[in-house]
């Protein structure tokens, strides 16, 4: 078979710039052949090389006493949780594949992140998912939105949720939490970020390095097909109408195969046979061979003829660039080959010895003995060009002028907010996920953070994912700072101490100067937050080029945060527990309406100054609530986020098994009523305590210098809020009717 000649057009088609091509020539000391060109193009894509974002990522704090494996070192970071146990966790995006084929795109995203975790030697124990779509209902969309756009968004949403359910449920890893937001900016470009956490003993950490000259290299798992050809390159381009024609980019996930692969790999890792292990994710065989060689400071030689294939007549180019799912590369200690064969036979999985670790630092690819590619591995893996893109600041929005804002009816407004899909209960989503398998989910989805009992380690961890992209679109730095603070706050409300962070940076095309500025501001904001909360970043993912013809998405730096709960008695949920309990607002009453969901949902305005985040005050509030929880004084804790205090109260009335009303009196506030109820000032937590403990709790908070006020009591068939002498009441059925089935009503119509 003759390969295409290397022409400037072919080079451009591979997304390689003339400068980059020059760099390739100097690395090789010659022109690359077609296969080599393909290899460089995927390894030097943004998705694999982070060439546009790496300089920014260096700003994250990545070290700390508990960090066992740092960000970027391996497939996922590893954090100590005590008693010789550790957790590995990471977040990964599958935005573009999900835009083209939502079910399989989301499913393979879940499969990919799970492989990242068990590659580390960890047993995956739970997942989260963070999703963004365009609006799904007429009511929640801009006035001129086409019905077809809404229908597409619903189809994407339904497809993504069932894809995640399909993969996660089948493989038996519970999906215990997440977030879903809807906004016009995601029309045509949904975000699908998936998170997985696994548990392991310190000594079980597996490495993705090709160590030991002469060690055999094994390919295990599913056969290679033409699917997902060059998906990494695909994820590093803007989405266009033609993307739908990018048929080969569709990969089909097989969670059943992955379950077998997971069990077989963990069984194998428990033996002494493995020198290194690496999953084949983006850029498949290419990425796994050159990265293991680069990490090991060695070379790897493989023969493509030995690779198990699903289709006939595949070229070396296709085999090297295929992104078929459910495959791994394993460097086996010489003499232990039989162990590998026995275990993979037992699990009925394909495997093959495809090559050997060499001492010359080359990634050498043969096909039936004939040389098809030869590239210095470390140069390919680590010497991609790095760019400092031009940034142009967008002016920060002015403070909202309340005089321009008509005061809406607060009764109606709260119901509208509760029914708004971003705020409404997500039960339609998480009911489709098996969130209880593995018998560890102590706090089910629906509270502030998910809480999971890791039985192997006898540890209780809490996890959450957060990002208010509306804030980020107006002020990316402050929005990112708030994302970290909110994640930490959600953990605090659950009784947990934050440990570490993983992030997923979703932005538009970095060649656009404003987009790049958003990325940089967000990274710096996240970094500030991580330092404030002492939570190093252990890894994450960058997804750029999130644009549709209408423009870039709102900047969305999603944060996944993991914390530890010291004692099972500290596990706390967000819903009220019994009538007669006293409700306290920890933190200020607040007054910032800028960038709020009230403005967006009720007034159709995405504007105003983003609430200020004062880390000192935030930490004081979180620590105070955690201290109260440790003293077992708190019956429920729920932070104020989208929709402010009124939404937080309404959620606490109904997120438990049964409905419980509340009588609230805010007194004379000096604020407008809508401002008092719906402002989104930060650092506020609604807690309920027994009547008996109320004064003691207030005294404790005062002693800690944290402002708090007694705002009411739990009980009754209504939520009643008195403020500035006016009284507004909502029946529980009314609140529940707005909030609970809002998404189901839209999706099942």
């Amino acid at each position: 078979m003759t390969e295409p000649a290397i022409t400037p057009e072919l080079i451009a088609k591979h997304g390689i710039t003339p400068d980059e091509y020059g760099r390739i020539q100097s690395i090789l000391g010659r022109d690359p052949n077609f296969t080599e060109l393909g290899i460089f193009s995927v390894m030097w894509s943004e998705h694999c090389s982070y060439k546009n974002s790496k300089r920014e990522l260096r700003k994250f704090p990545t070290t700390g006493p508990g960090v066992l494996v740092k960000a970027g070192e391996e497939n996922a970071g590893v954090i100590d949780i005590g008693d010789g146990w550790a957790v590995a966790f990471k977040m990964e995006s599958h935005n573009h594949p999900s835009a083209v084929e939502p079910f399989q795109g989301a499913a393979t995203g879940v499969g990919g992140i799970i492989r990242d975790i068990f590659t580390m030697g960890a047993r995956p124990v739970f997942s989260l998912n963070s999703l963004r779509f365009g609006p799904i209902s007429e009511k929640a969309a801009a006035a001129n939105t086409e019905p077809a756009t809404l229908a597409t968004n619903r189809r994407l949403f339904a497809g993504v949720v069932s894809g995640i359910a399909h993969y996660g449920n089948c493989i038996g890893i519970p999906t215990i939490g997440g977030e879903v937001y809807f906004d016009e900016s995601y029309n045509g470009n949904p975000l699908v970020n998936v998170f997985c956490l696994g548990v392991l003993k310190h000594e079980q950490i597996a490495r993705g390095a090709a160590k030991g000259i002469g060690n055999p290299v094994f390919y295990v798992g599913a056969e290679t097909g033409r699917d997902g050809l060059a998906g990494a390159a695909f994820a590093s381009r803007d989405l266009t109408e033609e993307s739908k024609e990018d048929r080969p980019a569709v990969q089909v996930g097989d969670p059943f195969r992955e379950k077998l692969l997971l069990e077989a790999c963990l069984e194998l890792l428990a033996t002494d046979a493995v020198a290194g292990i690496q999953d084949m994710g983006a850029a498949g065989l290419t990425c796994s061979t050159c990265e293991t060689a680069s990490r090991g400071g060695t070379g790897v030689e493989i023969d493509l003829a030995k690779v198990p294939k699903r289709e006939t007549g595949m070229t070396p180019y296709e085999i090297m660039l295929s992104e078929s799912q459910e495959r791994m590369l394993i460097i086996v200690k010489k003499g232990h080959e039989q162990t590998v064969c026995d275990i993979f036979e037992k699990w009925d999985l394909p495997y093959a010895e495809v090559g050997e670790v060499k001492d010359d630092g080359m990634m050498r690819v043969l096909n039936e003995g004939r040389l098809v590619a030869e590239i210095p591995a470390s140069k390919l893996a680590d010497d991609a060009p790095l760019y400092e893109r031009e940034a142009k600041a967008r002016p920060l929005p002015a403070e909202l002028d309340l005089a321009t804002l008509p005061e809406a009816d607060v009764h109606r407004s709260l119901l509208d907010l509760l029914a708004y899909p971003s705020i409404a209960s997500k039960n339609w989503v998480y009911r489709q996920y098996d969130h209880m398998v593995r018998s560890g989910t102590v706090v089910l989805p629906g509270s502030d953070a998910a809480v999971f009992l890791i039985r192997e380690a006898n540890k209780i961890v809490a996890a959450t994912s957060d990002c208010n992209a509306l804030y980020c679109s107006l002020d990316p730095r402050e929005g990112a700072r708030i994302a970290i603070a909110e994640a930490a706050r959600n953990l605090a409300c659950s009784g947990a101490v934050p440990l570490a962070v993983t992030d997923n940076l979703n932005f538009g095309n970095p060649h656009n100067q404003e987009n790049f500025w958003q990325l940089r501001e967000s990274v710096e904001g996240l970094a500030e937050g991580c330092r404030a909360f002492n939570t190093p970043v252990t890894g994450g993912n960058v997804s750029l080029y999130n644009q549709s013809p209408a423009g870039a998405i709102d900047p969305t730096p999603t944060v996944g945060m993991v914390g530890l709960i010291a004692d099972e008695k500290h596990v706390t949920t967000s819903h009220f527990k019994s009538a007669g309990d006293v409700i306290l607002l920890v933190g200020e009453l607040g007054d910032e309406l800028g960038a709020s969901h009230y403005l967006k949902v009720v007034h159709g305005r995405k504007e105003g100054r983003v609430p200020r985040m004062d880390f000192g005050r935030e930490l004081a509030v979180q620590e105070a609530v955690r201290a109260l929880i440790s003293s077992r004084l708190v019956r429920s804790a729920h932070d104020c986020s989208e929709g402010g205090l009124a939404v937080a109260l309404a959620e606490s009335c109904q997120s438990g098994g049964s409905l419980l009303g509340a009588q609230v009196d805010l007194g004379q506030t000096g604020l407008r009523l809508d401002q008092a109820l719906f402002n989104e000032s930060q650092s506020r937590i609604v807690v309920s305590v027994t009547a008996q403990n109320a004064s003691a709790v207030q005294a404790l908070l005062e002693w800690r210098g944290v402002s708090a006020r007694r705002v009411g009591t739990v009980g009754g068939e209504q939520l009643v809020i008195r403020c500035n002498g006016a009284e507004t009441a909502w029946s529980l059925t009314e609140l529940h009717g707005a909030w609970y089935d809002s998404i189901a009503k839209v999706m099942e119509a």
Partner: protein
Amino acid sequence: MKAAVIRFPGSNCDQDCMLALREFGVDAEYVWHKETSVAAYDLIVLPGGFSYGDYLRCGAIARFSPVMRSVVEEAAKGKFVLGICNGFQILCEAHLLPGALVRNRSLHFRCEHLFTRVENFTNPWLNTAVTGQLLNIPIAHGEGSYLADPETLIQLNRNRQILLRYCDSHGAVTHAANPNGSLENIAGICNARFNVFGLMPHPERACDPRLGSVDGRVIFESILTRLGVRKAA
């Protein structure tokens, strides 16, 4: 007394079942589906999950696993066999239980805590419960809608082989309380000899108080009582 938890490729509640059994002090072992005999065990548990990825039909392929021949033989001898969720589906496919489990009426997978009502306690599986007792046990399935022809249904009712029905929190067996479209809200049934029991809810997920309910215990307590390893309360 020894119990076996069968592991099919794709089983994923095997560890949860093992955990529950061991909590009760049962001597339990995993048995790989390629094994050919379960004669050594007194209680055989087919756990939930997605055996063979649920490809084709839930349980359709697992039914032909080597171990199933022995399970069928032992069941015929009167050994106790418990099938949970995917295990229930496999038992139906293997004709150890009548009927079939089909796609939920909503077409969605559903995972949540639900109530079921004990319909009959004079059997090995619920002898420590009382008729009418409500059990809060979670479900998690996409294909749990029980289906059988009218004669089978009459038989099941006449012999009191229907052990559990979905109900609301007051015990009413209503349409609204039916999560999947099962005939007559059926959540669990026995064979005519009462030694084979299949149910869609996951009792193994309702044994630890930290998980919100311990109502699943009654099933394990009952069968262990019947097997004489646990004294009746």
